[in-house]
């Protein structure tokens, strides 16, 4: 009687009351419903309903901000999983690295992915900044979003740096010792701020706990807030901006 295709099953599912109570609009087969997909969704509504076709070109943005955001999402997911196996204490922190490697299923994969995503995020964020600069996308009305972006770059560096200590191996300990010794050289506030950061005069168990809290709570929350403002302002300022138009460029010369 009725042919039962996958398509018809999905269509039937989409018409159920339960589905429509979650997703308020019908199938995205009309432009009206395609608009609703965007502005009836908390996460997608940072986008406008329509975008300039030009901005979808690869060379417009090289998707660098998107790569950095994708890294942030991967880091959150793998980071939460790593937290289940990690104790921020000496020497358990180091033992947990060994547990991840030899005991936990896919533990090493998890740690590897977290580490490479962290490096890629630093790299992508820096390249994103360069792209925005050379496309002059910092011009009005985007000036302040550039400043937020600089703060986000610093937050990314700090997140990566605080995470660097957590394995509590020689690499981590001395990498952080070298870095915090530089902070010590700042006039007036140097010694005090280093003491505040480390919870002591050397990198110790206190420093591990502080870096852990900064890495897993303070900095991610700060990053989430700043990132939300950053992305929201992109929309408010008229979407992503690519290379300057040739005509406007000629105008500036005069």
């Amino acid at each position, binding site marked *: 009687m009725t042919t039962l295709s996958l398509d018809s099953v999905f269509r039937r599912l989409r018409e159920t009351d339960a589905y429509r109570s979650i997703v308020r609009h019908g199938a995205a087969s009309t432009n009206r419903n395609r608009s609703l997909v965007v502005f009836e969704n908390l996460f997608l509504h940072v986008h406008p309903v329509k975008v*300039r076709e030009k901005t979808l070109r690869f060379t417009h943005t090289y998707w660098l901000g998107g790569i950095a955001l994708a890294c942030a999402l991967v880091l959150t997911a793998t980071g939460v999983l790593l937290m289940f196996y990690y104790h921020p204490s000496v020497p358990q922190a180091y033992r947990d690295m060994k547990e991840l490697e030899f005991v936990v299923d896919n533990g090493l994969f998890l740690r590897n992915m977290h580490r490479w995503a962290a490096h890629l995020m630093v790299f992508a964020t820096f390249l994103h900044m360069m792209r925005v600069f050379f496309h002059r996308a*910092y011009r009005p009305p985007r000036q302040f979003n550039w400043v937020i972006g600089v703060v986000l770059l610093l937050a990314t560096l700090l997140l990566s740096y605080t995470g660097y200590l957590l394995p509590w191996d020689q690499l981590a300990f001395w990498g952080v010792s070298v870095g915090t010794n530089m902070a010590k050289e700042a006039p007036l506030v140097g010694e005090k701020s280093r003491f505040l950061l480390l919870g002591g005069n050397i*990198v110790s168990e206190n420093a591990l706990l502080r870096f852990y809290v900064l890495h897993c709570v303070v900095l991610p929350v700060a990053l989430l807030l700043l990132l939300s403002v950053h992305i929201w302002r992109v929309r408010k300022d008229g979407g992503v901006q690519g290379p300057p138009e040739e005509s406007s460029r000629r105008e500036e010369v005069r």
Partner: protein
Amino acid sequence: MSSLPPLDLVETADPLATPRRVALVRPDRRPAVRTTDEKYVMTFPNLIVREVILFQVVVIGLALAAILFDAPLEGIANPLETPNPAKAPWYFLGLQELLHYFPPVVAGVLMPLLVVLALVVIPYARVNQTAGPLWAGAGPRRALALAAATGAVIALFGLFKCWPIVVPTAAISLAMFSARGGESAGPLRRSIAKVTLPEWIMVWFAVVATILTVIGTFFRGPGWSFVWPWAHAVAF
């Protein structure tokens, strides 16, 4: 235009006031939709699908990297046993390389502070909004000023024997001056002639930062001596 009524006629602080119907649209302030020839497409699916694909590509790439390469793990932290050299994470090795040439307060505090400050003020500096091609319509005075500025930078870093900065600075200023009068030359010089002063400065910053980081990461061994990258292990 002069016949606009004062605002307090139509706006009130009383939340219960019945709104009065007003029409105060100035002809030049109409909220008309800006007309444009540009082509627009629906965000869904055009942009959303691309974002999903991008996310998947990043996840797959990272997963492959995680399968192929293991994150480094050395022996347990030992405050009594300093490795030689003790290196910061790679993104700070440019600064650590500077530490080799400058006193710590300059390399570790002053320079990073200046970099952050310079980055923050970029959108607020007029030159970054208005700059055209560096040599367009420029007289000999600009060439002289720029020669003095690049000469000063080279001399300053030369004084501290900081060759990883001196050499790229000299190379980039050479490229900058070779662009002079290049508007009607071959395609390469023509494209270099389009570069603005802020762009030249950013290129200089990016090149110097990259060179310092690469040297600090791959070419520094015991006692911060020069080594070849294949002569020692590099851990990220």
